[in-house]
């Protein structure tokens, strides 16, 4: 079966369409005939109606004539005038309606001559009556010529009517027969057409819908992502076969792409995806994707390396930061302690400053007393000077006496030396004398010993005298200096008195200053306490800083670990 799907569909629908066309044609034909029969019936009844109208008008004319004849009243002739044209008109109409029937035309011609004749008779009668010849007119009526004419007219009309009705009857029968035939034709034709349509639908369904259904199922599987599908064209060459082949190729291509994708997903980015064609959007996109993925992974590896080193540096920095923060905290703590000590010192200083202020007040009072004392001191100094002068005179005398003693000592010393030499000479003489001089030797020895003792004694005396002389000299000098010092002291006492006066003023100023200092110190204490409070706050902040730095450090360590993890993750990719 090498038909294409279109041909198959066309054939199926064409057969059904032909059947329907036949049924329709038959129906059209019979309907046309029915309409024609209906028209004919209307035509027939129209003809019959007009003939009856014509007959009634003719009777009106007759009645008008009779009335006039009897009465001679002109008013009876009114219908006559109006009925005459009507009779003509109806006759003309009937003639026009039956123009297709020569037989009826012939009869109508006869009828029209009869009617003319009858009308002429009537007109004659009326004219006679009008001219006053009622008897003549009555005669004419008595002949019965009018009545026979009227009968003939009626007969002619009946013939025409019967002919028309007969024709009508014939058409009506034919139309009825046609209708029955048509009814059967429609019924049978419809059934046949339905039957044909059912067969065609069955065939098309079996031939097209089933494979399409298989493809739809496969497409649904692909939609859900299942690419493990088997599609066979069963050797069909039509569109469905081509569609199945194309579907199989598409699935194959998708499987290839999916395999590449799974390899990429497994981290192997070295897969090269070759597009099936230049228009292969998925393949091109996939190739581009893997290309850009490679690039991105490369960038990512570089980024991970940079991140790792940066994280390490951050860890180092944060560690330093943490240690610095700890040091800062320690320093701040020490500073706080120091500030606390400073505060205590300030407190002490404040206390001291108050004491100083009190002392300064006392000093101011004391300095007032001091001024009076300096006056007494001046008088005392004057007495001391007089006594110093006396001492100086005594010292000079003493110095002169010691000088004299020195001279005496020199003499004694000289004597001792000479005695010594004498003793030595004696000893020499004794030695020369030998045995006889032994005793003299002892004497000489004793003399020498005495001389030595006296020399030593004089030496001691000289030493003492020297000391005395030095002491007296020093005393004289000291006395001199003492006198000068006393004079200077007197002068200084005068100066001191002036100074103490100044001092009194200064001390009172100092007392005021000390009071101000005490006030300032109080303010300073308050300030220092504020500083201590601030330092306490700083200490807490610094402790928090340390905690934050520790947290930061651990966070940085996490970042570092993250960087290492990213590095390991990235290292799994093969580019």
């Amino acid at each position, binding site marked *: 079966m090498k038909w294409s799907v279109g041909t198959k569909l066309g054939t199926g629908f064409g057969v059904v369409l032909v059947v329907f066309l036949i049924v329709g044609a038959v129906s059209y034909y019979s309907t046309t005939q029915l309409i024609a029969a209906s028209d004919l019936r209307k035509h027939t009844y129209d003809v019959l109606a007009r003939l009856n109208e014509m007959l009634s008008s003719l009777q009106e004319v007759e009645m008008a004539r009779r009335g006039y004849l009897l009465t001679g009243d002109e008013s009876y002739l009114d219908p006559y005038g109006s009925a005459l044209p009507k009779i003509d008109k109806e006759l003309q109409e009937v003639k026009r309606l039956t123009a297709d029937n020569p037989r009826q035309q012939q009869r109508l011609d006869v009828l029209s001559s009869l009617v003319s004749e009858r009308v002429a008779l009537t007109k004659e009668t009326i004219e006679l009556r009008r001219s006053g010849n009622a008897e003549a007119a009555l005669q004419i009526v008595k002949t019965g010529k009018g009545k026979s004419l009227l009968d003939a007219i009626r007969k002619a009309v009946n013939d025409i009517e019967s002919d028309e009705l007969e024709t009508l009857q014939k058409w009506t029968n034919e139309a009825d027969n046609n209708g029955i035939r048509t009814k059967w034709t429609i019924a049978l034709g419809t059934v046949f057409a339905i039957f044909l349509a059912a067969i065609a639908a069955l065939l098309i369904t079996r031939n097209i819908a089933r494979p399409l259904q298989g493809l739809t199922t496969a497409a649904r599987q692909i939609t859900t992502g299942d690419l493990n599908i088997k599609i066979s064209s069963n050797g069909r060459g039509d569109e469905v076969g081509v569609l199945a082949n194309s579907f199989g190729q598409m699935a194959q291509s998708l499987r290839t792409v999916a395999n590449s994708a799974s390899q990429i997903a497994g981290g192997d980015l070295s897969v090269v995806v070759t597009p099936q064609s230049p228009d292969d959007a998925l393949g091109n996109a996939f190739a581009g994707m893997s290309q850009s993925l490679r690039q991105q992974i490369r960038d990512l590896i570089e980024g991970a390396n940079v991140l790792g080193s940066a994280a390490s540096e951050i860890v180092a920095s944060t560690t330093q930061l943490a240690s610095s923060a700890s040091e800062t905290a320690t320093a701040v703590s020490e500073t706080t302690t120091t500030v606390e000590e400073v505060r205590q010192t300030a407190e002490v200083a404040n206390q001291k400053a108050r004491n100083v202020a009190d002392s300064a007040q006392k000093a101011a009072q004391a300095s007032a007393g001091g001024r009076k004392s300096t006056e007494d001191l001046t008088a005392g100094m004057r007495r001391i000077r007089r006594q110093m002068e006396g001492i100086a005179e005594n010292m000079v005398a003493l110095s002169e006496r010691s000088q004299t003693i020195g001279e005496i000592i020199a003499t004694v010393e000289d004597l001792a*030396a*000479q005695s*010594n*030499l004498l003793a*030595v*000479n004696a*000893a*020499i*003489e*004794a*030695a*020369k004398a030998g045995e006889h001089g032994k005793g003299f*030797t002892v004497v*000489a020895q004793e003399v*020498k010993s005495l001389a030595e003792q006296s020399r030593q004694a004089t030496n001691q005396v000289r030493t003492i005298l020297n000391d005395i002389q030095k002491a007296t000299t020093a005393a004289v000098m000291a006395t001199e200096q003492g006198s000068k010092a006393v004079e200077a002291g007197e002068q200084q006492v005068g100066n001191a008195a002036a100074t103490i006066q100044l001092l009194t003023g200064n001390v009172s100023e100092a007392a005021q200053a000390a009071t101000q200092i005490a006030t300032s110190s109080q303010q300073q204490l308050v300030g220092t306490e504020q500083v201590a409070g601030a330092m306490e706050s700083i200490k807490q902040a610094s402790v928090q800083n340390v905690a934050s730095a520790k947290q930061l450090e651990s966070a940085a360590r996490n970042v570092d670990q993250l960087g290492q993890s990213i590095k390991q993750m990235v290292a799994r990719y093969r580019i």
Partner: protein
Amino acid sequence: MNAKQILRERARALARREKSAAIQGATIEVLEFRLAQERYAIECRWIQEVHSLKDVTAVPCTPPFLVGIVNVRGRILAVLDLKKFLDLPSPGITDLHCIILVRRNDCEVGILADVIVGVRSISVDDLQLSLPTLTGVRSECIRGVTAESVVVLDLERIFSDPRIIVHEEVEA
């Protein structure tokens, strides 16, 4: 042993030493004096007397060791300074210096001494002969050195030293 015994023994020992010193043979009597803080001695047999140094008259055109001449009881004597002779430092002459008058045959001179210590007796056996370290004039003029390092001068040699003869002529 009680204290008395000890004292007795000690006294006995002292007595023995005394006896042994007396027993010792030849002793010489010397006059000890000082020259520039060193102790020297001269045998008494040469010495006439000691005298304090007064009125030294310097003599021109004489060697440095000749201090000058003095008048002692009418005798005019030359005064030698052994310090110059023995190459010892001499800080100068003061009134405190003494002269030792010595006589050899007819020659009588005065020897300048810084300080006269006194007469004492020295055992000849104690004298050690000239020390090997001494050289030149010092070794020639010394008779011996005692244990207390007193140098005993040999005046005989000093007088026989040719340098001591003063014979200088100065052209007018």
